């Protein structure tokens, strides 16, 4: 895997929601459990947390003949190429690794939460105790040691795989074709390609909390791609104009006042 741009392929048609990946993730990344609550679903904990970087979402939809159909989705960081979190991070704590994944430098994170606002997938989570944000880093420590991420290692059904980007995308499309019946590939077309790609047995719009057309939010683009350079251009322009004005026009000196009849009394 070394030296390759990697993609983690999540084939949801093979996911049985055993949640081995959730446990393996906690184990490898040394993440504690939090007290949880039952909200009428097998989904546990109810959402991603600072200490839960991947979560199997359980969703019930109406299938054929009014039968309930269960949809599972492994949620977590999508590792965008055009990553909104990296764009907004004021300290460069979020960065692209050599594998194309998005990792966090916890020494740099100042807990400003800008990434939480910007992420189109609602992934980063804040911990007030450490004043930092947390999310999946695709097991950067394992990738560097030529090992698959803990979730991939633990998956018993082959729903999770990791490999070279092109190879995984080709696999994804092949699998979607095999499945047919509305199965789609999700991820390679958005935000310049995510490094986590789904094979979805249903259309993307069916899945809860999965944005139909994820993109870097427009206000973030205006902020970072327009206003940020404009701030420097305008400041430089004004300073330059002031210098030109001083050199060409000269200062507006007071005209000496000889009519001192009023003595300047106030």
């Amino acid at each position, binding site marked *: 895997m070394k030296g390759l741009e990697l993609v983690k392929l999540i084939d949801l048609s093979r996911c049985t929601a055993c949640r081995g990946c959730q446990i393996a993730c906690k184990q490898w990344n040394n993440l504690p459990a939090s007290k949880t609550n039952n909200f009428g679903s097998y989904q546990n904990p109810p959402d991603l947390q600072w200490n839960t970087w991947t979560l199997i979402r359980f969703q019930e939809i109406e299938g054929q003949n009014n039968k309930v159909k269960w949809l599972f989705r492994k949620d977590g960081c999508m590792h965008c190429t055009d990553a909104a979190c990296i764009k*907004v991070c*004021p*300290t*460069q704590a979020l960065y692209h690794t050599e594998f194309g994944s998005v990792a966090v430098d916890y020494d*740099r994170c*100042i*807990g*400003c*939460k*800008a990434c*939480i*606002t*910007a992420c189109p997938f*609602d992934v980063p989570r*804040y911990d007030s105790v450490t*004043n930092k944000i947390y999310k999946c880093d695709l097991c950067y420590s394992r990738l560097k040691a030529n090992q698959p991420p803990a979730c991939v290692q633990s998956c018993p059904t082959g729903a999770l795989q990791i490999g070279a980007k092109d190879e995984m995308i080709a696999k994804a499309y092949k699998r979607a074709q095999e499945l047919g019946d509305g199965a789609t590939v999700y991820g390679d077309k958005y935000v310049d390609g995510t490094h986590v790609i789904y094979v979805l047995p249903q259309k993307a719009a069916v899945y809860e909390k999965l944005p139909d057309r994820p993109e870097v*939010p427009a*206000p*973030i683009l*205006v*902020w970072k791609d327009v*206003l*940020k350079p*404009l*701030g*420097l251009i*305008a*400041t430089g*322009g*004004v*300073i330059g104009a*002031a210098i030109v*004005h*001083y050199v060409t*026009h000269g*200062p*507006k*000196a*007071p*005209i*000496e*006042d000889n009519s*001192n009849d*009023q*003595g*300047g*009394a*106030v």
Partner: protein
Amino acid sequence: MKKGMIKATSGFERLVHWCLALSCLTLCFTGMAMMYHSMDFIGDMMGGMGNLKTVHNYTGVVFGVALIFAIGMWWKEAGLFSFPADWQWISCAGGYLWHVDKDKMPQVGKYNPGQKIFFLVVALYGIIMCISGYFMWFPEGYAKGLLQNMYLLHALGFVLIFPFFFIHLYLATIGVPGSAPAMFSGWVTRAWAKTNHPKWLKEIEK
């Protein structure tokens, strides 16, 4: 009273001005350190970007308080235009950029329309900076679309206020000699007042 000199500002005005100015500049530079990665040495100078963010947040509070006082004491003098004289001044750029015949220049009162525009930009956009800054400081629980636009407004404020500050700096120092003492000792020369604010001079010498 000083011979040939005129008192332009009170001690309270100067105190508020400098509280506003120094907090605004601190906010600009710490803000720049967060927007432009090449300027994060400012964070190093403060012991890290975490400290810098803390300084930025609390300086924002100082700025907000100073702004309330500034608006309160300057709104009548610098916040309201008096048309059509002010419009005439604006249409000839106050005579700063090209030659304007003396009879076409309206008599300037205590603040010229350029100063009024600067005051209004700082006053009105300063309020927006405080509001958007509040949301950025405490974002939890608010809709993401709202927060994203708060970041946008905050960045826009920098683009407006920071370049404008340099115009203010230039015209208050080397651009119009004799202006700066108004914000240090408070005293300006009568010649300076007659050149730059003749209508105001007439009013106070009535």
